[in-house]
């Protein structure tokens, strides 16, 4: 015979453990670890300082945007424009600095462009009522085109008087030899995690994704919040664009092409549900890590790079299937 209180405690502990075991983020994290261990044994080149430095830095650009994308997906939306917005913001930065302005002015112009694009998305989606898919698909085309117009479709690799500052911003390692982009990613992830977990804004994102009608009825300012979330998504794309410009030291109008797929994949693999209502900041990072490890390992294992798309696509499918199976078992 167990007393009711023991039962209650049992149940609570079970639910805590099953909570972790049911968590998609946890299993993806395990997959990343297993893949890393396997690659360390199977190849000589994986666990080298240089390769790890490369991987962590590569993760960051997808991860930073995946943070914003996760927020959008939590509300039940989608942002297909991020790759093009990244390109536009890089170009605005490049062209402004190339024209002789300081890095501060360049970054300000770049960020303002990102916020303007995001605000446009939000207004069209929340107030005009167009589907997010359509609005951001249009921007995918428009933003890259604007980047081409701004730069005359040339390569920008001279950034005026603050050239070196920009390169240090993206390519340096200011703290304990950790690449700067990684630092930015960690800081942004902490901010995003804080917003999602501890603020009313974060709570409302989940509420809108869970039941938009209920959120409206209970007095949640649904429309302004939607505008804000698309601005945040574009902002993360803009930040990634600025950092990537500094890292690469040159920009073409091709950068960020097809990036939206990797970003959405990272968010979804990290546990963001495309129907809305679920997703975490840490999940976005882990999802981005898995994608990068897959990409990296294919190269190291000598598998033709053309297979990359197939593997990443399969990872997305698996993540969504996993989610579906879990929901089915819950509804039983």
């Amino acid at each position, binding site marked *: 015979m167990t007393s009711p209180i023991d039962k209650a405690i049992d149940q609570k502990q079970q639910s805590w453990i099953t909570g972790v075991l049911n968590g998609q983020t946890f299993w993806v994290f395990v997959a990343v670890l297993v893949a890393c261990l396997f690659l360390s044994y199977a190849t000589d080149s994986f666990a080298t300082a240089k390769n790890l430095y490369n991987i962590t830095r590569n993760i960051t650009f997808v991860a930073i945007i995946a943070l914003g994308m996760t927020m959008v997906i939590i509300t039940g939306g989608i942002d297909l424009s991020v790759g093009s917005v990244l390109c536009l913001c890089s170009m605005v930065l490049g062209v402004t600095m190339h024209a002789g302005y300081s890095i501060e002015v360049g970054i300000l112009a770049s960020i303002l462009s990102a916020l303007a694009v995001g605000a446009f998305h939000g207004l069209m989606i929340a107030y005009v009522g167009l589907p997010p898919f359509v609005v951001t698909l249009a921007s995918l085309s428009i933003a890259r085109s604007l980047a081409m117009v701004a730069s005359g479709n040339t390569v920008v690799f001279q950034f005026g008087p603050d050239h070196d500052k920009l390169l240090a911003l993206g390519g340096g390692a200011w703290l304990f030899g950790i690449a700067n982009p990684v630092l930015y990613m960690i800081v942004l992830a902490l901010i995003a995690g804080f917003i999602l977990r*501890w*603020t*009313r804004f974060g709570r409302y994102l989940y*509420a809108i994704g869970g*039941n938009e*009608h*209920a959120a409206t009825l*209970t*007095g949640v300012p649904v429309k302004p919040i939607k505008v804000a979330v698309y601005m945040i998504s574009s902002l993360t794309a803009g930040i990634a664009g600025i950092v990537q410009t500094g890292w690469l030291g040159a920009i073409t109008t091709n950068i960020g092409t097809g990036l939206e797929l990797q970003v959405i994949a990272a968010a979804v693999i990290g546990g963001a549900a495309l129907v809305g*209502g679920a997703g975490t900041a840490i999940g976005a990072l882990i999802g981005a890590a898995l994608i990068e490890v897959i990409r990296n390992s294919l190269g190291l294992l000598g598998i033709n790079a053309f297979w990359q798309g197939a593997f990443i696509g399969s990872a997305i499918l698996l993540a969504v299937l996993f989610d579906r199976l879990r929901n089915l078992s819950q509804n039983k």
Partner: protein
Amino acid sequence: MAVLELQNISRNFGAILAVNDVSFKLEAGEVVGLMGDNGAGKSTLVKMIAGNFRPSHGTMLMEDREIVLHSPLDARQHGVEIVHQDLALCNNLTAAANVFLGRELRRSIGPFKILDYAAMYKRAGQIFAELKSETRPRDLVRQMSGGQRQAVAISRTRLTNPKIVLMDEPTAAISLRQVAEVLNLIRRLRDQGISVILISHRMPDVFDVADRVIVLRRGNKVADKSIAQTSPEEVTGLITGAIGKA
């Protein structure tokens, strides 16, 4: 002194007269069943009390003072809370998060205001206990029974100290055992001196829990009787029109 008094309230939508010259009084701690066929004007009437619509004619008084409600928020400030027919719950959030949705408790940390999880869990737990519901604040609404969901929706009305709670078809979509649970919740509200207007299609529920029944037919009030002085047969007749007026 009546908590709520409607005097000759009418509401038309274009040429359609949804509610026609309806008057009634609601006393403190009284449960009134509002019955009528689809399109009889029940929802329109309740939405006027909840601040969603304004009456075309007539006046509304609360505690003998005339009021004009411009919005649901206005109504809430006057002490009118509504439990929506579809409950307006987010399945992906916890019971406590749903209770406090739109009215989250926060505490200050430096310049930031962060969600006060502990306080919300505690207060939600207290409200569930008051309502004698087995709902646990940390459970996700997705995993709850219909009765528990109803308890969460009703708990929202306990955040403030409302005078009137409007309930739109609270027992329409749940199992029989859970219906009993919801009717108990309504009695708890009444015991605390709160007046309840219960819209329902289910005759047994109204006769079980209400003190009085008001019947609407085609926008007109055709009956306003104490439960003790009427019968399900008579009310059915009034709803369908087999009995003209009582």
